[in-house]
C-alpha cells in the first residue's frame, strides 16, 4: 500500500495549487451541512437552557418574542414599560418569587440592567470579586465585560448619555464598580447590573440636590430596594456621581410604584402556581402579558429549523456541484496525466496500481478535507454558537 501512497503524496505535492483547491472545495462541502447542524443544535441548546431557567416573564402587551428576548438577552431596549407596581404586586403574592428588570440604558454600548440583588442567585451568578449591588450608584459587571474593559471593584463606569444634544438633558451617571461576576457563559457575562433605583437615577427620575443634605428624607438612597418614599425639594442640581458624601441627597419625585420597569421575571413555586398566575393574564383586557420563554423559544426554533432546511438544501446543491466539478477535474487530470499512466503501464505497472494511485490521491485529499473540516468544527464548537446567539438574537 505504501507504493501508491508514496506516488500519490508526491503527485499532490507537485500539483499543490490544484490539490489545495480541491481539498478546500471538499472541506467546504463537508463543513457547510455539519457546521449549520452543529450551530443550530448549540444555538438551540443555549437558547433553551436560558429560557428553561426563566419560567415566566411579565411585560407590556406586544410582541412575545421581543419581551422574551428582552429578558433573556437584554435585547430590545425600546420595549414599552410597565409600572413598578406590577412587580410590587407579584412580589406580594405567595405564588413564587419576582425579579424586576429595567433595561433601557447602556454603558459603553453594553446593556445596563436594573434589578435586585436576588437576580444573581436566581441565575446562579456568583460574585468573583467585591460585593453585590446593595448601594445606590453601585454596579456589578459581568465576567466578559470585566475582562474586556479590565475593570475591578473600585473602578468607575459611566452610563451612556441618552440625549447628548439637549442642554436640559440628563447628565450621565458615573457608576462605582462594586463587584465582578464569575463567568456564566450567558448573556449575564455581557451586562452591567445596578439596582432598579440606580437605573432610575441614571434615567433622570431620581436625582440629587445641592445644599439639601437632609439625610432623614433621603433614606431611599441608603436602602433603595425597600423605600417608597418620595421627596420634593427646591434648588435642583443634578449630580453625575453618587458618593458617600452626596448619597443622602439623592431622591425621587412622585410615586415609586408608578416608576417604569421593562419586565418582571417570575419564578413560580410549582406548576399549580404557574397556572394560577398565567390565568391572571389570560383576559383580553389584561393590561400586561405573561409569556413563557420556553414556549417562545420553541416557536423561534421552528423558524430556525426552516432556515436549516434551506441551509441543508444549499449544502446538497453545493455537494452535487462539487461532485460534478470533481468528476470534471478527475477526468481532465486523467487526460493530462495520460502519458504518465501510459509510461507506468509500459514499465510494468498494473492497471490496478494506477487505479490505486488515483484512489490514494483522492483518499489523501479527503483526509486533508476532513482535517480542515474538523478544525472548522472545533472552532465553531467553541465560538460559533455564542456568536450566532449574539448575531441572531
Amino acid at each position: 500500500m505504501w507504493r501508491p501512497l508514496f506516488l500519490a503524496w508526491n503527485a499532490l505535492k507537485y500539483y499543490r495549487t490544484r490539490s489545495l483547491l480541491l481539498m478546500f472545495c471538499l472541506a467546504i462541502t463537508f463543513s457547510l451541512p455539519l457546521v449549520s447542524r452543529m450551530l443550530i443544535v448549540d444555538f438551540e441548546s443555549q437558547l433553551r437552557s436560558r429560557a428553561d431557567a426563566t419560567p415566566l416573564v411579565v411585560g407590556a402587551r406586544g410582541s412575545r418574542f421581543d419581551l422574551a428576548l428582552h429578558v433573556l438577552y437584554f435585547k430590545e431596549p425600546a420595549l414599552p414599560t410597565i409600572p413598578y407596581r406590577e412587580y410590587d404586586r407579584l412580589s406580594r403574592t405567595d405564588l413564587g418569587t419576582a425579579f424586576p428588570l429595567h433595561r433601557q440604558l447602556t454603558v459603553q454600548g453594553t446593556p445596563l440592567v436594573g434589578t435586585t440583588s436576588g437576580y444573581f442567585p436566581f441565575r446562579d451568578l456568583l460574585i468573583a470579586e467585591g460585593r453585590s449591588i446593595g448601594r445606590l450608584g453601585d454596579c456589578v459587571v459581568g465576567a466578559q465585560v470585566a475582562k474586556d474593559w479590565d475593570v475591578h471593584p473600585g473602578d468607575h463606569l459611566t452610563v451612556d448619555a441618552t440625549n447628548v444634544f439637549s442642554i436640559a438633558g440628563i447628565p450621565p451617571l458615573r457608576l462605582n464598580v462594586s463587584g465582578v461576576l464569575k463567568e456564566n457563559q450567558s448573556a449575564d457575562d455581557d451586562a452591567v447590573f445596578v439596582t432598579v433605583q440606580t437605573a432610575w437615577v441614571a434615567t433622570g427620575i431620581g436625582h440629587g440636590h445641592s445644599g439639601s443634605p437632609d439625610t432623614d428624607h433621603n433614606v431611599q438612597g441608603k436602602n433603595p430596594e425597600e423605600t417608597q418614599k418620595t421627596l420634593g425639594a427646591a434648588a435642583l442640581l443634578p449630580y453625575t456621581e453618587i458618593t458617600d458624601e452626596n448619597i443622602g441627597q439623592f431622591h425621587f419625585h412622585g410615586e415609586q410604584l408608578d416608576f417604569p420597569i421593562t419586565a418582571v421575571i417570575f419564578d413560580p413555586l410549582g406548576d399549580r402556581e404557574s397556572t394560577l398566575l398565567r390565568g391572571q393574564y389570560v383576559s383580553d383586557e389584561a393590561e400586561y402579558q405573561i409569556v413563557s420563554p420556553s414556549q417562545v423559544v420553541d416557536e423561534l426554533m421552528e423558524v430556525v429549523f426552516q432556515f436549516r432546511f434551506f441551509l441543508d438544501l444549499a449544502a446538497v446543491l453545493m455537494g452535487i456541484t462539487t461532485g460534478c466539478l470533481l468528476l470534471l477535474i478527475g477526468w481532465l487530470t486523467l487526460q493530462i496525466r495520460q502519458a504518465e499512466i501510459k509510461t507506468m503501464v509500459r514499465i510494468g505497472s498494473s492497471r490496478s496500481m494506477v487505479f490505486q494511485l488515483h484512489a490514494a490521491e483522492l483518499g489523501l485529499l479527503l483526509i486533508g478535507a476532513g482535517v480542515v473540516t474538523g478544525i472548522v468544527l472545533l472552532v465553531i464548537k467553541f465560538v460559533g454558537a455564542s456568536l450566532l446567539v449574539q448575531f441572531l438574537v
Partner: protein
Amino acid sequence: MLQVTNLQFHYPESGFQLSLPSWMVPEGEQAALIGPSGSGKTTLLSLLAGILQPEAGEIELLGKPLHQMSETERRNLRISQCGLIFQSFELIPYLNVVQNIQLPYYLNPVLERSSDVEFRAYQLAEQLGLSSYLQNRVTSLSVGEQQRLAICRALITQPQVILADEPTASLDQTNAERVMDVLFEYSREQKAMLIMSTHDPALFTLFEHRLDFASLVSSPV
C-alpha cells in the same frame, strides 16, 4: 536468448503490418533494429517487451514463451527482467531524480525495494553524471541529462534484457557516445541482451546482430 518465429502483427487503424519470419539473438549479445521512422522498430520492441501481443507467431525471451503468457505474467517478466528506454524518456514530473531512477520499485510489488536499491540508484546516477542532481525535479534537467536518467531507470532492476528505442535520437554526439558506452558496458559486464532501435548508420557497426526493417514491413493495405 531471444527467439522470434513467424511473428505477425498489424495495427487495424492504420493498416500497418509487421511480419518477421525468424530472428534470434543469443544471450548477452547486442542487436540493432535498423530502419527509417515508422518502419516498425518501436512496434517490435513493444512486442519483445510483452506490451503488445502478436496476432500470430512465437516470441521466446529468456526461455519464456511470451505469446503464451498472461498479461500479468508478461508485466512481471517485463518489470523484473527488462530495462526499457523510451525515445521520449517518459520521466515522472512529480518525482525527483533519485525517485525516478527507482520508479520500477514503486510500480509493482514483484520488485522488492531492499536497502541496496537506493545505493544502486546513487551508483548509477554517479556513473551517468547525475549525482549532483539527485534531489532535483526532472524538469530542471537538460535533454541529455533526462536521457541518462531514463537509462539509470532502465538499469536499476539489473535487467537481463535492455530494450532501447532510439536512445540517442535527441542527443548530441558526445552525449550519444556516452549513452552507448554505458549500455554496451552494462551489456558486456552483466551478460545482458541489448536490443536497440536506431536509424543512425554510424551506430550500425557497433552491433553483432542487425535487423533491417526495410525488408520486413509491408505497405498499408
